[in-house]
């Protein structure tokens, strides 16, 4: 329903000085160079994607709007559950997500659900498209569904066919059958947040989770913390140092969470993304057989860093999803809320504010799509750059949206305060944004130090 034909301070579309209708009257070549379709912005980007990815994006949006969005507020406000107790709505969504292929799309059939037509495109790009749609709907549910892929990533990146067939295959199969088998990624330790994410810190860190050789495998002991989805996971890729060695011995163990000695001690009371648990896990003589060592002994550090390189662009995409949700919410408010007898959207300062938010959001998406498109072998520099820049700017956009709503910006029912709480986490996890800035430099240092080479940016 249109209330007026044009905003105050502008000309109606049919006015003699309005240019757009005149483009259609230019001669053919002029028309070809000027006459654009003023499509919806989401639709415009949709049309620019390769067909298979556009379809994926469209399906992700439909799933998010049908299943995630309606549950977002209730799950955000639900009382904190005891560890491992799953909210019925979360259980339903996980089953549905599994059946629709949202827990298995990093590999094509017969193992996974990635469309074969999407295979020529970097999986990181595909994941980024999905993550943006899910984040826009609910940060907590997005994290619940995305942390699973993070947990599976070392299995994929190990490059071992046996691992894919014997470990990842059953996970994906179970998910597709509507019996979600979630996998958690466990690197962070109580004494090591950033030390688990950058080499300089890891060099001097004394590992907190240690693997001791025993007959037929290893025994894991120690604690992991802030493990996203760790409370509901059936399996976990746990990184541990070998007994008597440092972080260079880090090895990835694929742990069955039902193994005796594996205990979820607690889940954290988080500021946001509350539909997903952040678990503290205690490992007491957890036996892991040799055939569950992923990628080989002492390959864990490389697998960990490669996993982070693959995940940081999708984390940046979370930022776009949140910024988009905030911008869309602010636009709706400005279109419907009246001050002085007219909707806020008619005021020039409101238009300036919204224009900045839209530009910020689309600039983030452009950056991410550009980097993700080329991220079949994601480079650390590019992944970190995307992560810290997009998430920093996304929080700024969310703050702008709250500022626009002013007195009403803090009301939970207006959604923005939840979006703010959700986006805040993206600047901390997967390496704080400070660590990600240093990570960019770390990856660049060879070129930075070579004075014979020009440094291109």
């Amino acid at each position, binding site marked *: 329903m249109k209330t007026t034909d044009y905003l105050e301070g502008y000309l109606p579309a049919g006015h003699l000085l309005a240019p757009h209708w005149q483009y259609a009257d230019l001669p053919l070549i002029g028309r070809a160079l000027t006459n654009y379709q003023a499509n919806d912005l989401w639709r415009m980007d949709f049309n620019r994607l390769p067909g298979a990815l556009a379809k994926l994006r469209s399906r992700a949006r439909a799933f998010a709007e049908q299943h995630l969005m309606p549950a977002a507020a209730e799950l955000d406000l639900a009382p904190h559950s005891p560890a491992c107790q799953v909210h019925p709505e979360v259980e339903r969504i996980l089953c549905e997500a599994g059946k629709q292929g949202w827990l298995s799309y990093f590999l094509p059939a017969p193992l996974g659900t990635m469309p074969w037509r999407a295979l020529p495109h970097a999986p990181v790009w595909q994941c980024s498209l999905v993550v943006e749609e899910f984040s826009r709907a609910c940060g907590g549910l997005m994290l619940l569904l995305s942390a699973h892929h993070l947990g599976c990533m070392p299995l994929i990146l190990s490059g071992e066919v046996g691992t894919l067939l014997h470990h990842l295959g059953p996970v994906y199969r179970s998910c597709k059958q509507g019996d979600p088998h979630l996998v958690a990624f466990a690197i962070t330790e109580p004494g090591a947040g950033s030390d688990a994410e950058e080499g300089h810190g890891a060099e001097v860190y004394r590992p907190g989770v240690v693997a001791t050789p025993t007959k037929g495998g290893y025994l894991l002991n120690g604690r992991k913390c802030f493990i996203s989805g760790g409370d509901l996971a059936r399996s976990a890729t746990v990184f541990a140092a070998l007994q008597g060695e440092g972080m260079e011995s880090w090895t990835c163990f694929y742990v069955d969470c039902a193994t005796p000695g594996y205990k979820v001690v607690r889940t954290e009371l988080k*500021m946001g993304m509350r539909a997903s648990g952040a678990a503290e896990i205690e490992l007491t003589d957890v036996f892991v057989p040799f055939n569950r060592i992923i990628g080989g002994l002492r390959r864990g550090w490389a697998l960990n860093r490669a996993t982070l390189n693959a995940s940081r662009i999708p984390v940046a995409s979370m930022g776009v999803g949140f910024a988009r949700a905030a911008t869309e919410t602010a636009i709706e408010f400005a279109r419907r809320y009246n001050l*002085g007898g007219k909707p806020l959207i008619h005021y020039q300062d409101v238009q300036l504010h919204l224009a900045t938010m839209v530009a910020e959001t689309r600039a983030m998406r452009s950056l991410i799509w550009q980097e993700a498109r080329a991220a079949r072998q994601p480079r650390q520099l590019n992944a970190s750059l995307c992560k810290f820049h997009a998430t920093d700017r996304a929080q700024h956009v969310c703050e702008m949206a709250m*500022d626009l709503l*002013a*007195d009403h910006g*803090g009301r*939970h029912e207006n959604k923005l*305060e939840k979006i703010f709480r959700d986006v*805040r986490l993206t600047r*901390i996890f997967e390496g704080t944004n400070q660590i990600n800035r240093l990570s960019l430099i770390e990856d660049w240092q060879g070129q930075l130090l070579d004075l014979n080479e020009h440094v291109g940016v």
Partner: protein
Amino acid sequence: MNLDIEDTRQLLEGVGRFARERIADHASRPESPPGPEILAELTREASALGILPQSTEEEGFGIWENSTDAQAVSFSIGALRSIAHACPGVAFAWHRMALARVAAVELGLVLHEDELQRVLFSPTGHYGLARTSLAKWLKASPLQAEDITLLADWLDNQAHALTLCAPSNWRSLLRPVWCGDHIAWQQVSRSDLEVCENIQHGFDELTGFVVRQPSPAAAPIEREAQDARRLYGNLLKLDMLGLLAIGAGALERGEEQAKDYAAIRKQGGKAIVRHPAVQHMLSDIAIARQQADMALAQFARPVDELDIGVVATMRASVSVALCQAADQVIQVHGGIGYMRDAGPEKLVRDQNMLKLMSGGTREIHAFLAGWHGAC
């Protein structure tokens, strides 16, 4: 009787002691904020100690009493900082309670201690700061028809709901109304209002409300044009000062937490305070706190002498800096800072609330344009 510097110092020591020993104790677990009973008990104690004004008839040295005296303003700012250091939500509730008393005295309303503690004071309209129009009216600039339309709409509680935050037990609402060409005041009983509770972003100790007046209320309490301007302007100035003081006190606590954590948390084999990335963030926090200190110091003057344009300018810049600094307190803590039982995340939510209250900060630019005669 006016206060001198020594009086102020001693009074603030008393408030600081009360904040540390009573309020901080109840607010020590950020994930379990003090409930309504504890808040009521603390309010009674603060009133008995004279930190809060006791009634409209008794003169004292409580918050915002005698704001025509520079030392009294200095005391109020200092007291709100100390209380906010312990719990920003409590400070906000008491700040608004004290402002209700200022308004009530000026309007000739008689409110006893219990009544005073249950007045919900709302200084502004339903959205923003009425763009340029409020400032033009405050400055006695000629109003155009659209200014009058806007001010009438801004203060129309029948057409638009107010979003407010207060202790849950309030009984009446004291708010401004537009009367043709000036702002008057109305005290409306809660039973005459449509009131919905609403979950809010911050101030977990308090309750969020959406309040609408379904039918016309009793006749407003009017003042002469000049007086009406002075009263409204002073209340708006004191409200902005209070919000800044609360933000500064809350950040002070956050700064201590960030420094303490940075001194013990290790990364790369050394305390994180030795990493330039963390030093930079701690400096950001110190810069914002200093900025707030300087702004507040210049406002320790009789309220009549303060230029509302300057107060609003400071609110626009300092509250943004305080929010960013609080955000850095989370970042210094890393993952733990995001958890509700740690404290920094609540600090950020409370700072955001302070920024969004009373029309927010975005419309201050339009307000200043009106104040400086740019329209």
